[in-house]
């Protein structure tokens, strides 16, 4: 049992830190959920990519550094500690790219990944529908066979980043009337500016268009944009849901850096006699450390060749609730000023409130923990 990093990993850390010190914008970029901020974050992706820092865990041929999961964790610790911007390409990098590595063709990887790495193409996810949320497999948007490809027909919603993104990926029903709802689904990529696509941005709690509805009216998608076999989309989408992705959706580095900032706020602002707030600051410090060590333990298992499956549900509930508690503590430390919409904590607070809802609600995650880790019987949801 050993928490010390190898010399090679420490050298990598030093290289990342030096680059970030020289490049991280001195003034935070505008919110990436605005047109201006989206453009600024896209430019930052290009700057990262120019020196091969945008996708360190990818193979070198696609712009990465072939970093294993421990080295990726080291990078993330440095990235967030340096105060670097949020990642506008996160959906593509953490959801679509792992699927392409496992189930895509060489042609798809060569075509999609380099422009994802530079931010030239930003990807949105298109999973949910008005009547298919937690019960995603009940989705009804269709992919109808046509010459050389498919016509997409239906409605997607809560599509993160879609207001400003270029392309999207999601599941569509290609075979109606299958015995089970998760059969007959196909995983497709499509252009958000293609004829037949209407994007209606949706304002999140603070009004910023962080997600969108997508209306699809016979949108043509060529066969080359199907990932995996037609009809096998559910398996393709779920294959990466519980594995490395579960470890890498939210990196510990992000929360370690946030806890550091919170301690700074506590020192600057706190009433030393307020032990209730002091305890909450301590819990934020402890929680970030717990999440870091939990992730290192699972990364070690992963490197040993073990699969990390339903354990990623533990991780998702933990970080999403932790993130809210941390930001609530920050707002309470700010006192009445915490109500303002433009403090350095406001954006993170609003973002954190969505955490227990997206990427599988925490209720679904608790069902998975109970049924697959604890062995409790299935029941009505």
């Amino acid at each position, binding site marked *: 049992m050993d928490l010390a990093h190898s010399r090679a990993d420490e050298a990598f850390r030093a290289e990342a830190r030096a680059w970030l010190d020289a490049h991280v914008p001195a003034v935070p970029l505008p919110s990436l959920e605005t047109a201006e901020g989206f453009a600024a974050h896209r430019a930052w992706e290009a700057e990262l990519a120019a020196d091969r820092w945008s996708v360190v865990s990818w193979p070198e041929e696609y712009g990465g550094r072939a970093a294993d999961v421990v080295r990726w964790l080291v990078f993330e610790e440095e990235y967030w500690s340096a105060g670097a911007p949020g990642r506008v390409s996160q959906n593509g990098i953490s959801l679509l790219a792992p699927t392409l590595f496992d189930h895509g063709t060489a042609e798809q990887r060569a075509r999609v990944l380099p422009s994802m790495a530079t931010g030239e193409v930003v990807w949105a996810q298109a999973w949910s529908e008005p009547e298919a949320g937690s019960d995603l497999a009940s989705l009804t948007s269709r992919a109808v066979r046509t010459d050389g490809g498919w016509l997409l027909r239906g409605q997607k919603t809560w599509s993160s980043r879609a207001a400003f993104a270029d392309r999207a990926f999601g599941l569509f029903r290609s075979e109606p009337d299958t015995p089970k709802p998760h059969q007959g689904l196909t995983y497709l990529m499509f252009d958000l500016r293609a004829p037949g696509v209407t994007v209606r941005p949706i304002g999140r709690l603070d009004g910023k268009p962080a997600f969108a509805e997508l209306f699809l009216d016979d949108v043509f998608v060529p066969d080359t944009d199907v990932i995996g076999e037609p009809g096998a989309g559910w398996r393709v989408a779920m294959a990466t849901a519980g594995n490395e992705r579960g470890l890498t959706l939210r990196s510990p580095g992000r929360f370690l850096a946030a806890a550091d900032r919170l301690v700074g706020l506590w020192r600057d602002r706190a009433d*030393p006699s307020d032990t209730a707030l002091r305890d909450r600051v*301590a819990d934020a410090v402890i929680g970030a450390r717990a999440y870091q060590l939990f992730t290192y333990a699972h990364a070690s298992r992963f490197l040993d060749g073990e699969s990390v499956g339903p354990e990623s549900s533990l991780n998702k509930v933990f970080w999403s609730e932790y993130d809210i508690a941390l930001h609530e503590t920050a707002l309470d430390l700010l006192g009445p000023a915490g109500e303002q919409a433009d403090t350095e904590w406001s954006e993170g607070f609003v973002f954190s409130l969505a955490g227990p809802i997206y990427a599988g609600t925490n209720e679904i995650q608790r069902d998975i923990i109970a049924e697959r880790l604890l062995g*409790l019987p299935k029941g009505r949801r």
Partner: protein
Amino acid sequence: MRFLLDTEQRAFAASLDAMLSSADTPTVVRAWASGDHGPGRAVWSKLADAGVFALAAPEAYEGVGPLPVGIAVAFVELGRHAVPGPLAETVAGAALLAALGEEGPAERLLPAIVSGKSMTTLVLPGGGPFALDGDVADLHLTVHGTGAAAELRGSSRAAAGPTGLPRTSLDPARRLALPSSGGERLAGGPQVADAAARALDWARLATAAQALGVGQALLDRTVGHVRRRTQFGVPIGSFQAVKHRLADARIALEFARPLLFGAALSMTPADVAAAKVTACEAAWTTARSALQLHGAIGYTAEYDLSLWLTKARALRTAWGTPAECRAEVLRGLSGAGPRS
């Protein structure tokens, strides 16, 4: 970087688990609570033979340590089986004597702790008012004072004399004696204060590990119960309200575990305090869910669940309250506290 127990450490845990499973610890705990210490002493000897106490002592004093990771591994199992006795106190007492080195009383006292002959209770500044199981411990170690005025006194059970009636704990297997005021002066001065601070960390680490094991046992027993117990024609474990409480317990325990082993690797006061508060809160959260999901049977003394339920509550404030541990975590950060 390989933050996993190795094969040998896992085998050690499995062998302790097997040994304690066959020892029928619930019966041992009930005997201990009623003042019959024989069965508990027999388990104590087996733990010594398995090398548990040797982990806290250096080779110079017939130990194999100090190996805090091994202590953490062992104490998770001790908690899972609700083993009674001054376990954390004995290990921390060994660490205290070891820290005092050759000049101190280690050579005289440590080998008997390692061999299991000397069950030890311990009172330290900052560690709570009671000498756990003082009516049965063979060796009483007490540190008074701080800094240059710190001194370590020790006495045998016979010499410690009556320390007043032992107070009963919410955990009937914990017998709370008042520390003896007399005893032989074994050492004094700032090195005693330093050694006591280190011993406090060992006691906290061992308690954290024990609490994690207690929480695991509570979760395992409750999962078994809700799978078997049928109401409305289905196992109650199929209901979401039940599932989600147990999922939350599992999350709390799973995130306490890496803090425990991280603390065992670093042994810094802040890391140990973080592990202590997190493991104990996780165990107590799990205890509340265990009680609720068992229903009325869980609220009885005769049902074995009570042995873990009450221990979870007692460990929460033993060797560092939640507030003390959280304060220690913040003291461990570089830089000062609030300015205003």
